[in-house]
């Protein structure tokens, strides 16, 4: 009986420790506020209440905001990465390779920016902006898993990602 109680207590302690570690990890890993766009603005763009997860930059990795709005059977996502890059113009051009030949220059976003529709292989839509403000390189991806999303249509996606880009670049200046 005592043994069984000890085992249960041990299990409980381990479970508490695990939960504690998890929450500690979550606290270290995620902050509620994205530095470049607030949750309300992102929610407005994604068409509903969105949840933000922010990861600070670490060795060689950019800082990332992932803002998701999940519904019944679909997810809309706004993902922003920001990193410092010397020779930023070259880095920016390299990052543009993600767009292939589809990159369209975008006026009045940061120092320079381009956008393109990403090939999602038929699984929803995704638009990408690659831009920079001085020596800060940023990428913004806005996507939906819905094939015929009424909120993020091909047309509105371009307008919405432009708005998101203006918010991000504005906060990076």
């Amino acid at each position: 009986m005592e043994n069984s109680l000890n085992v249960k207590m041990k299990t409980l302690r381990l479970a508490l420790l695990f939960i504690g570690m998890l929450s500690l990890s979550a606290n270290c890993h995620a902050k509620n506020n994205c530095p470049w766009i607030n949750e309300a603005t992102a929610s407005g763009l994604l068409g509903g209440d969105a949840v933000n997860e922010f990861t600070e930059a670490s060795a060689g990795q950019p800082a990332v905001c992932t803002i998701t709005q999940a519904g019944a059977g679909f997810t809309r996502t706004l993902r922003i990465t920001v990193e410092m890059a010397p020779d930023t113009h070259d880095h920016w051009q390299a990052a543009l390779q993600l767009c292939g030949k589809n990159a369209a220059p975008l006026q009045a976003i940061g120092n320079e920016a381009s956008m393109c529709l990403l090939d999602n292989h038929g699984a929803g839509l995704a638009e990408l902006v690659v831009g920079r403000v001085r020596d800060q390189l940023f990428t913004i991806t806005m996507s939906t898993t819905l094939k015929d999303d009424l909120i993020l249509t091909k047309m509105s996606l371009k307008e919405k990602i432009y708005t998101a880009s203006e918010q991000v670049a504005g906060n990076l200046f």
Partner: protein
Amino acid sequence: MRKIFCSSILIAGAILAGHSIKPARAQQEQAQQDKTQPTPDAAALTPPPAYTPRPKGAPPAEDTPAQREAIARWKAKAEQATQAARAEHNAVVTPTYNFHYGKKNPYTPGNITVQGDGFIQPGAFPSAEYCGTCHQEAYKQWRQALHSNAFRTPFYRTSVNLLIRDKTRGISFARHCDSCHNPIGVLGGALTEDSKLDRARFDADGLTCTTCHSVLSLDSTNGNSSVQVGVPSALVDENGDRIPGEVPFDMILRHPERHSKAVMHDFLHKPEFCAACHKANLPDPLNDYKFIRAFTAYDEWQLSKFSQRNPLTFYTADFTTCQGCHMKRAAITLPDYGAKDGTLVSHRWLAGNTAVPFYYGFDEQLKKTIEFLRTGNYLNVDIFGIQKVGSDKLIAPLGRVAYNLAPSDAVQAYVVIQNKNIGHSLIPEVRDLYEAWVEFTVKDANGKEIYHSGFLKPDGMLDPRAHSFTNRPVTDEGDFVDNHKVWTIHSVAYDNTVQAGRSVLVRYEFRMPADINGAVTVTAKVNYRHLRQSYLDNIFGKDDHPAYPIVEIASKTRTLKVGDNQPEAPDTADNEDWMRWNNLGISLLDQFQYMEAVSAFNEVVKLRPNYAEGYTNIGLTEIVWEKYDSARRAINRALAIDPNSARATYYDGLLQRRAGNTEKEIADFRKVVEKFPQSRDARRELGITYYQKNDNKAALEQFEALQQIDPDDLTAHYNLSILYRRMGRPKEAAEQQAMFVDKKVDPGAPTYSLNYLRVHPEISTESIPWHIHSDLVDAAGAPQNGK
């Protein structure tokens, strides 16, 4: 989505900038010519609903009982919905809002306020697209104008972000700037650390239609957005009560007069409305230091000839408001139900900003801005005279007198630049960011440069020894505030602006080449760049942006021949000879060269013996020169020619004071005040006279009137504090005393300026009113004559 192609003007701007472009920048410039700009324009608007205006003079439409009831129902519903939304909004925003300046001051350091309790939800403001449906021309213009882009531009964001990121400040301090640049954000409670507001629309629209058109009253002319914004409304009901929010278009089109009542107020046509934001100060809550005047285009206008409120201007003009220049009526190209006879007042607010349309690719706005700057006859550039170095004789006015030049002659050229028709200073407002300067060149017949001042260096920076119409605000360490961190400004090391109606004399020295034959051409230009190169570098990074446009506002070229030069017929664009002398006199007066100024004004009266103002100019110069007897003779002569001259009467008042004729002094100043009730100088002097006469009541009346005209007048603060105390009004006395202490320049501030000037000899020379731009050297190769 539409594509905008940058016009050749932009490229011309880059070429004019005359500096090499590094590969990255060259690519940027190329790319800028073919960019996608998704900001919606008028083409994206819903077509306007059908509308046939009622014939002119026809009475407003009569509503049936059913129509009246429908409007009443709509109003009740709209009020309920707006109030509920506002309450809900406040429940979300208020708990986490940073009330840094206390619960009663949610918008401090801005002066903006809003009707009703608590923050107002951004959704209460009808969108620009809603207004644009019936006002497509206004919408199209507004979208490219500075007002709609007041917040989002990198030029603004970089500055305000510095304030937000500053460890001793933060976002709540940014309410000072955003009250004008993003008022819906401020009033909605977005300016707090953990904002709960969707910022997309109000950030992108800056000053939208329903910010200006919802203002209910102007709280004062203190600036910093000193307005009360009402709950936005597009229509009033039959009783004149405002219906909040958007209403169906058919309601508006049935009662356009009620729409006007909701959105148009008389003050929208007045300069005081513009003053709300085109006048700014840096208050103690922002800088933890003291009140510092940032800029005031409004007061500059009020002191200009265009206001007709100041009897002391050198010239006169028809009454013209800010709107008269910056909102000129023009033919419409898109449907706009606000148009009158096919024309609409401009919602482009054309002025000097070329940077924003350049960045956004708003080619039409850029083109019109450049046209505006060039076609306004705003400046007059006059290569007025030359003086051979070593001789006292001024050969002037150039073109009108004969003279002889020889090879190797060292020549000093007098360039007089007149702020002729700008209703404010050259350059106005944040002149730490803008750049206007004189480019002066001397070239031989083959185009070879003999002398060049005001060139651009390869990195785009302006020749540091150029004569520029800028300023240099400095910190308490004496460092130039290069990045518009206005809260760190403690002093201004120099300010070379030219006030409205005044002139400046810029002197250049050069030597004719020893082997020259033929002629040299001398050209003086006033160039304008928005913004300074180092500020653009702060925003985009050095060598990381295209060259921004440079606009030549005005210029003058003269040919100087070796040998004999004969008088010529004047150019039609030149000022008349008397005015050329008059402008020289004004500029010499401002350089404290009183004897030379009197000589110049004497030339004016020789050419126009019945020009009373010429004698008044002699009189006023002699007053400041403290030669009162001859001043009296000149003023008497002016009054003999024009007994009703308020300007001469004012100076006569000063001379009567000097002579101890108090009653005549009072009579003079009263006469001026009767003619010009908003003359701050006459009110001030009359107040002083009454004060000295111990007529406290009359003195109080004048100083209170003066404070109504200029709420920052130090003499008014000082004297009112004493007068209120004498009259047993200690609270008001203490308020005036506090304002005097806050607004008076810190006696220690000049030392900050000196710290800067000590290490910047080129600016130090510029800060001296009388200086020469010269590259002459003596036999040992050392500079001659200062520069």
